């Protein structure tokens, strides 16, 4: 396994800048997730590391070794595609054996058979080995595709939204399996996704990419608790963060168009106009709460219920565990955890605290 380093990668496509001065590193044995919306440049980053795309500027290093002019086959990385890309003319066994049969590796027939069977065992696809890939379900295809990556020991695993074409239940199951696999094999993994849940649950570290720029790199806690911009605050977390314009006057913060007035933090560095972000779990229902609002919508999810509470013209989301017994139109009292409020400037950047 290897330590991967990207230095100031820039890539332009006709008419668009796909990546702009992107630098980060993936440490040996780390599960690194690149998170971002569609078109953010996640896949381009992955392809640049695999050598399928050549960056216009910057360098890529594996263990300090410059990779810029190394062909994809010599980089020894494994890539799991979103569309699986299993070789359609081959059986599952041949698909798994394909990387081992590369002239670069010269694996003996006996060893290929052993490794393929081991891999199939790990991914629970032993019974499928003789099948043609066209006769597999989506989940089975993705397992084979992951198997094709882990059958050899590459320097880095690159995964391009491998779970996004699967249905929700299967995605959850494979998510756990992937995480388990990565931890037991200690492999360096770069995982690309637009799904914040995948990012938060699996990552050791997350890099958030938007419009070709890397905005924040940090642990899932960093990203969730200290988002560096309103974009990240909104991208991560479900239900979404309550984000509203606010004003400060004489040490009191007023959330625009609402009856909510809060004391400003003591350090008093806030300007007159800014934005506040409030995670739904920081809006606590409390019969003795000092704020109140009307329940306008409830979304019961089973394990929790999302409540939409209206205060004047502004609607705050809150969550309560289990199925709530409140009725629409009820007046609810709540408190706000002041210490967890996120303060952002009008340009979207977080105020340093």
């Amino acid at each position, binding site marked *: 396994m290897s330590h991967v380093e990207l230095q100031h990668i820039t890539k332009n496509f006709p008419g668009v800048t796909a990546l702009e001065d992107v630098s980060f590193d993936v440490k040996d044995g780390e599960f690194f997730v690149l998170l971002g919306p569609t078109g953010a440049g996640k896949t381009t980053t992955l392809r640049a590391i695999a050598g*399928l795309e050549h960056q216009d500027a910057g360098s890529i290093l594996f263990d300090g070794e410059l990779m810029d002019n190394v062909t994809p086959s010599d980089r020894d990385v494994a890539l799991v595609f979103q569309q699986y890309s299993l070789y359609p003319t081959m059986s599952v066994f041949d698909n798994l054996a394909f990387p081992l049969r*590369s002239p*670069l590796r010269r694996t003996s027939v006996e060893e290929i058979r052993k490794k393929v069977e081991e891999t199939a065992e790990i991914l629970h696809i032993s019974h499928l080995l003789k099948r043609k890939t066209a006769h597999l379900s989506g989940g089975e295809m993705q397992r084979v595709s992951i198997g094709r990556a882990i059958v050899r020991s590459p320097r880095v695993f690159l995964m391009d939204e491998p779970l996004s074409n699967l249905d929700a239940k299967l995605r959850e199951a494979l998510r756990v399996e992937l995480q388990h696999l990565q931890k037991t094999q200690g492999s360096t993994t770069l995982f690309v996704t637009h799904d914040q849940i995948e990012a938060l649950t699996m990552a050791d570290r997350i890099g958030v990419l938007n419009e070709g720029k890397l905005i924040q790199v940090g642990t899932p806690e960093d990203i969730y608790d200290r988002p560096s911009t309103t974009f990240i605050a909104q991208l991560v977390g479900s239900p979404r963060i309550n984000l509203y314009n606010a004003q400060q006057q004489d040490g009191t913060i007023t959330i625009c168009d609402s009856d909510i007035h809060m004391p400003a933090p003591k350090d008093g560095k806030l300007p007159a106009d800014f934005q506040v972000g409030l995670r739904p779990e920081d809006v606590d229902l409390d019969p003795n709460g000092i704020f109140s609002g009307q329940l306008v919508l409830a979304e019961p999810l089973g394990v929790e219920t999302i409540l939409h509470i209206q205060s004047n013209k502004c609607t705050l989301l809150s969550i309560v565990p289990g199925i709530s017994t409140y009725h629409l139109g009820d007046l609810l009292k709540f408190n706000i955890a002041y210490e967890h409020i996120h303060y952002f400037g009008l340009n979207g950047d977080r105020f340093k605290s």
Partner: protein
Amino acid sequence: MASFEETGPRTPVVEPTRVDKVHPRAKLGKSFRVILTLIVTFIMIIPVLVMIMTAFKSRADIVTPPPKVLFHPTLEGFLYLFTDRSLFSPSNLEAARANPGNLDYWQKLALSVGQKINGPSDYVGRLKNSVIIAGTSTILSVILGLFAAYAFSRFKIAGKDDLLFFILSTRMLPGVVVTIPLFLLYKQLGWNDTHIGMIILYTVFNLSFSVWLLKGFIDEIPIEYEEAALVDGYTRLQAFFKIVLPQAVNGIAATTVFCLIFAWNEYAFALMLTSQKARTAPPSIATMLGSGGLEWSAIAAGSLGFLIPVAIVTFVLRDYLLRGVTFGAVRK
């Protein structure tokens, strides 16, 4: 009242789902389609049938009006086609008939129409020329076309669209227009009446077609497969042979058949640019008209023999062709 199993559902099931529950009307529709297909096929095949029948008719049967459908088959046509003969003088004929000796089937057949076999005709050699020229040029144009199509499909090439247009433009005027300049050119180069000259000519003509056709098929193959192979430790060329080629088989088969049919049937260039050594079958069949009356059975036999190789190739490749000639329109 008849049971449901016998009559089928009350409303017609137009799409046959389960064979035991198809409405009789749907069955009728299906057999109607089959019959219609058979009739159309029969109409299409009539000229070929007439040709086959003519090839096995005797000279008298061919010219009888109305045409005979039932007749006594003979191999006279093939005798005329494959042998060079001379007429017996009446006295020699008497002697030969009186004392046949050890004559083989063909000699006996010739004797029965009063002729003597002097040796094989030119036709055999010309059919051989056709096989060599059409076969080699087809293989060359498919291989060259495949690599060119791959490059056009996968790589950034400066002026790609212009180049493709230029390649196509070689097809934009009828070939006959350039026969005179080509004739002069070939005369200068010494390629006149040579196999190599004809192979190059047909390859050039087929190349534009095969590049365009194959490019369509290769465009259909998602590039991710090759990228996966590249990452898995293969070079581009290895990925081409291991991944692209097996998936392009249908397209290659379709292209092969079309190129072969063109090269095999080509008449105008062969007539102008070949005379003896490299003359192909099509012009030689045509020249059978003329010297000493119309030998219809020989012409029919010649056409039949000429048809068979292409028919065999098409038959061998039929499974790929069925998928290939849809030009990737339905394959998704």
